[in-house]
């Protein structure tokens, strides 16, 4: 149905032409799901957006190749002709459903807008079709919710609305650009199911762009693997998963978190005891109970995984322990000291012993400070080193986190995401803390980088004898690092168990639901060795 042949796209900047897509060939058949897989910067989105004329031009420029759709070459069409195809024959679903919906228009108006543009039908008829479609994508009571505004929907519901918008003109091809990346795992599983159902029912072709092989493992028929603008491998799902030829594909498969870690011998001495912890945030009328009466212990030397969906309060617990947010009530006892009752100067002493690793390495480093300045700051502050000895210590630290010493005087913007996260980890372990809170430390990173950073954290944990609270929404990642896991929902503890027990015999329905939502769980069971 769609045949892309030898497509090349460049971005021409003052620094010269940058080839984002280089001689790419793939095809999408109707009634099949074709997935394009690649890490950030691999050109997967650019390749698809350029087909619809959706890349900014200049600097973007289609340099060569053809894209045959219904006998027409999309790359040769002008803007007016493309507009006729966009939304009617080919529709798109984007990653972030919030930014793609106009907050000042009702869902219904947005749904019918493109219908009335393309098909020139009456308002009442358009509305009837919109309601039917909302029903089909699983929106409850569509007849009344059609007049709601986007902010009145949850993230998953908004993505359903986006899908409905894409389908309203009955396109033959649906391009979905990371449609589930911004969603919680259980919601992700539902949306993937919805896409697979729709594709079967309506017999349309779907081009699914993702950075995560696991996500498409259950639904894709054809898989195209891209790296640095080139297609490195194309094959059916079973070919890719069971018989990958290209080393890069094998690396991607190996990076899918599988299996658990060797559980350390359990220690009974608890380093941190959390008792009846409540952290509420004042909101206009009622307080938001982010953490609501949580009790648990963190034992010395263990990695405790804290798992939950967005809004479950997992980050707030981490921030509460380090007093980055104020606790409403309850106790946090760290090695005999009640953290919630400490005065500022006592707190400073304690902060040497507990540290935080943040999710976004692009935001957690001061852009105006060099690596050296960033890493020396904690050492000087806590008088671990003085001005004359600190340099040697910083360089050793850089060795430990796997950064070349030659980078010491570089600034954060000169590093990749993975390297930045290494700097952030270096800063956190600089004072040789006993306890570290790692808040989604790998979720902003590409999968292959993810595996490297997890490996680094495992190594450092052993070397420094760290106790760690590992916060994540991703059970597959937590499983690789954690000895024990606590599952949170809406500010309360649902279940806690050793990692092995939790995966083998989950006790609570919510835990089972989370486990079933892990994308590509077939891979987890180990029926694909990968690489």
């Amino acid at each position, binding site marked *: 149905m769609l045949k892309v042949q030898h497509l090349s796209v460049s971005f021409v900047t003052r620094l010269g032409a940058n080839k984002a897509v280089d001689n790419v060939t793939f095809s999408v058949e109707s009634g099949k799901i074709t997935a394009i897989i690649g890490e950030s910067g691999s050109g997967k989105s650019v390749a698809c957006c350029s087909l619809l004329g959706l890349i900014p031009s200049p600097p973007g420029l289609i340099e060569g190749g053809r894209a045959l759709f219904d006998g027409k070459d999309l790359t040769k069409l002008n803007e007016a002709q493309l507009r006729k195809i966009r939304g009617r024959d080919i529709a798109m679903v984007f990653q972030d459903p919030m930014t793609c919906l106009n907050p000042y228009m009702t869902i219904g108006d947005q749904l019918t807008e493109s219908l009335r543009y393309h098909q020139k039908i009456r308002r009442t008829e358009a509305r009837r079709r919109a309601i039917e479609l909302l029903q089909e994508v699983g929106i409850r009571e569509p007849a009344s919710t059609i007049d709601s505004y986007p902010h009145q929907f949850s993230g998953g519901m908004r993505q359903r609305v986006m899908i409905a918008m894409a389908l309203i003109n009955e396109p033959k091809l649906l391009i979905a650009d990371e449609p589930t990346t911004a969603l919680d795992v259980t919601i992700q599983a539902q949306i993937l199911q919805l896409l697979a159902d729709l594709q079967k029912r309506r017999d349309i072709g779907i081009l699914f762009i993702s950075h995560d092989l696991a996500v498409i493992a259950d639904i894709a028929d054809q898989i195209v693997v891209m790296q640095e603008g080139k297609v490195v491998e194309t094959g059916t799902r079973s070919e890719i998963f069971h018989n990958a030829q290209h080393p890069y594909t094998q690396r991607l498969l190996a990076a899918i978190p599988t299996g658990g870690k060797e559980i350390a011998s359990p220690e009974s001495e608890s380093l941190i005891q959390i008792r009846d912890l409540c952290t509420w945030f004042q909101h206009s009328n009622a307080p938001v109970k982010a953490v609501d009466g949580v009790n648990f212990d963190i034992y010395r030397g263990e990695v405790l995984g804290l798992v939950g969906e967005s809004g479950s309060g997992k980050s707030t617990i981490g921030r509460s322990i380090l007093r980055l947010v104020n606790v409403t009530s309850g106790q946090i006892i760290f090695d005999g000291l009640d953290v919630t009752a400490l005065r500022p100067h006592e707190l400073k002493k304690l902060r040497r012993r507990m540290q935080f690793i943040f999710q976004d390495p692009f935001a957690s480093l001061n852009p105006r400070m060099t690596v050296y300045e960033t890493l020396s700051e904690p050492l000087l502050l806590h008088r671990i080193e003085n001005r004359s000895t600190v340099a040697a210590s910083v*360089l050793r630290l850089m060795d430990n986190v796997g950064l070349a010493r030659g980078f010491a005087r570089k600034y954060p913007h000169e590093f990749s995401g993975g390297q930045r996260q290494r700097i952030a980890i270096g800063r956190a372990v600089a004072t040789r803390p006993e306890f570290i809170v790692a808040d989604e430390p790998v979720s902003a990173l590409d999968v292959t980088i993810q595996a490297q950073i997890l490996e680094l954290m495992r190594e450092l944990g052993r070397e420094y004898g760290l106790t760690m609270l590992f916060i994540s929404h991703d059970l597959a990642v937590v499983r690789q690092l954690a000895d024990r896991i606590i599952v949170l929902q809406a500010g309360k503890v649902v279940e806690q168990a050793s990692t092995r027990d939790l995966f083998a015999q989950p006790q609570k329905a919510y835990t089972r639901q989370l486990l079933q939502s892990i994308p590509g769980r077939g891979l987890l069971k180990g029926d694909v060795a990968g690489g």
Partner: protein
Amino acid sequence: MTNPAIGDLAQTQPGTSLWQDAWLRLRRNRLALVGLIILLLFIFIAAVTPWIAPYGYAQQDLELGAAPPSAAHWLGTDIFGRDLLTQIMFGGRISLAVGFVATAVALLIGITWGAIAGYMGGRVDAVMMRLVDIIYALPFMIFIILLMVVFGRNMLLLFLAIGAVEWLTMARIMRSQVQSLRQQEFVEAAVSLGLPTATIIRRHLIPNALGPIIVYTTLTVPSVMLLEAFLSFLGLGVQPPETSWGLLISYGAESMEEYPWLLLFPGLALTLTLFSLNFLGDGLRDALDVRGAKD
């Protein structure tokens, strides 16, 4: 990956800071660069005026009266027979000094005030910003006239009075910058390291908030210079025998029909300076824009 041969910092390669990156981009902006050069030239001339001025500041040639430009007096003379070029050079010293010193005062107070209010938040922020609102609400002219009446006419006071008004906007910009930066994780990281508040503000917040402040500064200097010209024009600012561009323009305007050069040349000097500052400000805004920065 690591290179154990590197034993100390001096052997490592220096990186490109965001400031250096901004400078590289500014250098490519022709107009901004011309503005910067003109500005530096004017400042240099103002600094060395007492030594290079063609005539003495008070030197008169009463017989000559107001003469049009000539070989002896390049820009002509005023009605008292004083050389206009000399007058403009000395006037520029005062105008530029008012512009830069008053802006510096505004910067110092505004940045500190705004950074503290923005970082502390809550009640401290409310009290500090309400004070700003109150001063904002005072009619500026009355405020200046009142100061002049109480303390007498005084150059230093003029600097202070203008600075005391201009810092308000600075403080507001700084506060909003700091408020958004405070949410950033690197500030939280600094808190969790146990850094004292003053260090966090000084090392982590102010350097990152400086971009918009620098741009606004280049727009404040011209507005302060215009203010001085306006006050002098009204007779509230610089008093004879001292002179400034504003004062020269005011005299020139009186005799505009008979001796147009008396208005033209001081006006040109002021306009050129203001243009330069505006072009520089424009260039800086593009150069410091984070969205344009490579990621």
